[in-house]
């Protein structure tokens, strides 16, 4: 274990739910980023959990902006900072809805035009701030308030969409692996240009498990191989050892599903689709790592 900086940028007065992993992750992200950082936050849980004016739980500048606008705001901000000769980290911290749905156009634009920023999508696989409605990132079979019978469509593969922009650095991470997240944020911020981290953020109220099980659920996501940890630096893919192990000796998918109320009564068909998508993801990543794709 690497010793992490003691300095805290997320104080213990957020209004986050018990067991919230996005606020937990933010703590590590900001430890990695340090004080010369602006967090650009669109509508999402983080817009609310940072506190109520005039108080804030955050000890870095947080710029709140409209739902679809995070990445574009970062483009302007990064341009202004660089002009002023400042190396300030511009980090978008956006939920899955603000990334894969309403914010995807601005994200794609910022990635394409080479904005010097880090975009972190914390993915709890639904619109958490509005009470868990389906998003494009919701996995098939998951119950949300707008998919009461379970989602019938597959999770949008934002990573492949981002990868198609050929940015210098992108990675996946999981809130249950904070050291890995810390290291990836550190590396991302050392590279100029657009960077992207897709962070799986288990969500007790949304996923319907008890608050103390967040880390366990996150680890299960990785150990089943459903959530793959990797990074892609200048096109070079590196799969985390834990995910390599999961591909060889995966924990049963059922273990991940059964601890979450959102998958209660999931159909065999949906479960089959989840597993098929997972296996296809493994094949793609392995082929890419082997240089055969």
């Amino acid at each position, binding site marked *: 274990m690497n010793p992490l900086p003691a300095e805290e940028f997320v104080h213990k007065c957020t209004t986050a739910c018990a067991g919230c992993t996005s606020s937990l992750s933010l703590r590590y992200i900001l430890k990695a980023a340090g004080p010369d950082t602006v967090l650009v936050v669109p509508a999402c849980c983080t817009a609310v959990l940072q506190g109520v004016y005039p108080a804030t739980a955050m000890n870095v500048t*947080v710029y*709140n902006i409209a739902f679809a606008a995070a990445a574009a705001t970062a483009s*302007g901000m990064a341009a202004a900072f660089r002009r*002023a000769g400042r190396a300030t980290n511009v980090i978008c911290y956006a939920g899955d809805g603000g990334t894969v749905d309403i914010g995807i156009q601005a994200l794609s634009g910022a990635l394409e035009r080479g904005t010097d920023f880090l975009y972190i999508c914390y993915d709890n696989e639904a619109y958490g701030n509005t009470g868990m409605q389906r998003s494009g990132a919701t996995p098939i079979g998951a119950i949300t308030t707008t998919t009461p019978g379970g989602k019938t469509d597959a999770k949008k593969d934002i990573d492949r969409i981002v990868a198609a922009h050929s940015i210098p650095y992108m990675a996946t991470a999981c809130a249950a692996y904070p050291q890995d997240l810390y290291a990836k944020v550190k590396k991302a911020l050392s590279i100029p240009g657009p960077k992207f981290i897709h962070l799986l953020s288990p969500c007790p109220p949304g996923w319907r498990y008890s608050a103390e099980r967040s880390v366990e659920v996150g680890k299960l996501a990785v150990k089943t191989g459903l959530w793959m940890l990797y990074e892609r630096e200048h096109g070079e893919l590196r799969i985390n050892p834990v995910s390599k192990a999961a591909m060889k000796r995966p924990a049963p998918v059922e273990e991940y599903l059964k601890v979450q109320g959102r998958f209660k009564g999931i159909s065999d068909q949906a479960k089959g689709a989840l597993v098929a998508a997972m296996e296809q993801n493994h094949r793609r990543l392995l082929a890419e790592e082997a240089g055969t794709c």
Partner: protein
Amino acid sequence: MLTIATGNKAVAAAAKEARPGVIAAYPITPQTEIVEQLATYVAEGSLDADYVPVESEHSAMAACIGASAAGARTFTATSSHGLLYMHEMLHWAAGARTPVVMANVNRALGPGWNTWAEHTDAFSQRDTGWLQVFVATVQEAYDATLMAFRIAEDERVLLPVMVNLDGFALSHITQSLETVDVGDFIPPFHLPHAIDIAHPRGYGTLTPPDIYFKFRWDMERSMRASREVIAETEAEFARRFGRLWGPTEDYRCEDADVVVVALGTLGKEAEVAVDKLREEGVKAGSMRLRWFRPFPILDLAGREVVVIDRDYSFGFGGVMAHSIRSTTGVEPYSVIAGLGGQEVTYDDIAQFVRQREVGREFWFGVSD
């Protein structure tokens, strides 16, 4: 320097003179020439700015907000659907007190597609907290753009400013233009609430009902204060550069019995109509409104008023007619003309005056 230019080129030249640090823009007819010109200035090195080629107008305004918050002077330009696509971010820019300056080349809204002049695009943004000025000549487009930066960035204002010019009618017309050496007319950009890494703050944090309205009141207080700032800025501009602009441009109004009120190029064409009417013995005058937000304080008491609206609020009426009625108490003859570039000549305007019926609404070209 005396030269010739189109309305678009004049706006670009003024924006360049203001030395913005960040320009974020997206092309749309008939504005495109402005951002092409600015991109060219940046590419050739005559303007030291970052041109951020965004993928939409929503992102253009978002990028301007981000850049402004980070301490850079920002400029953008749009038209019509681009302005509408920005709508959310227009509210945000004003609420965030980012003094963005934007040219809006007024154009009608679809469907069907129409790229010609209309003011409904800008009027649809009237409650966003932006100052809005409407210009009628290439020179005025230049002057108003320069002044917009000084007004927006004044600490008593700190609200964004929209410079409106009629699509094609003004954006693409070639007229003479006298450019100026702006000198220190526009002070260096200073945003008192710019992001300061040494003093981290939350911007736009969740704001509860017992506080939120205070921010709104502060915007209105600044909007009211902007009248004085505009007047000061226009006076200073006149002192330095010799051209005086005001809330309205009045033409032969002193002894007028009937006043034509219009915006943009129609307001200029109306002056020709006034001359024609005067030859017929009609004591007509023209009052071209320049500022729409803040809405000017007008004295129209004791006169008949013909308001030409190049816009419409469905189920309500012409926006200008209602604005005049509600702010002056004068009941106008409301003419709806020039929508989507509908040709309106000085003869037509003279006829509106001749046929005026106080309290009535008349749609030009609609027979029933």
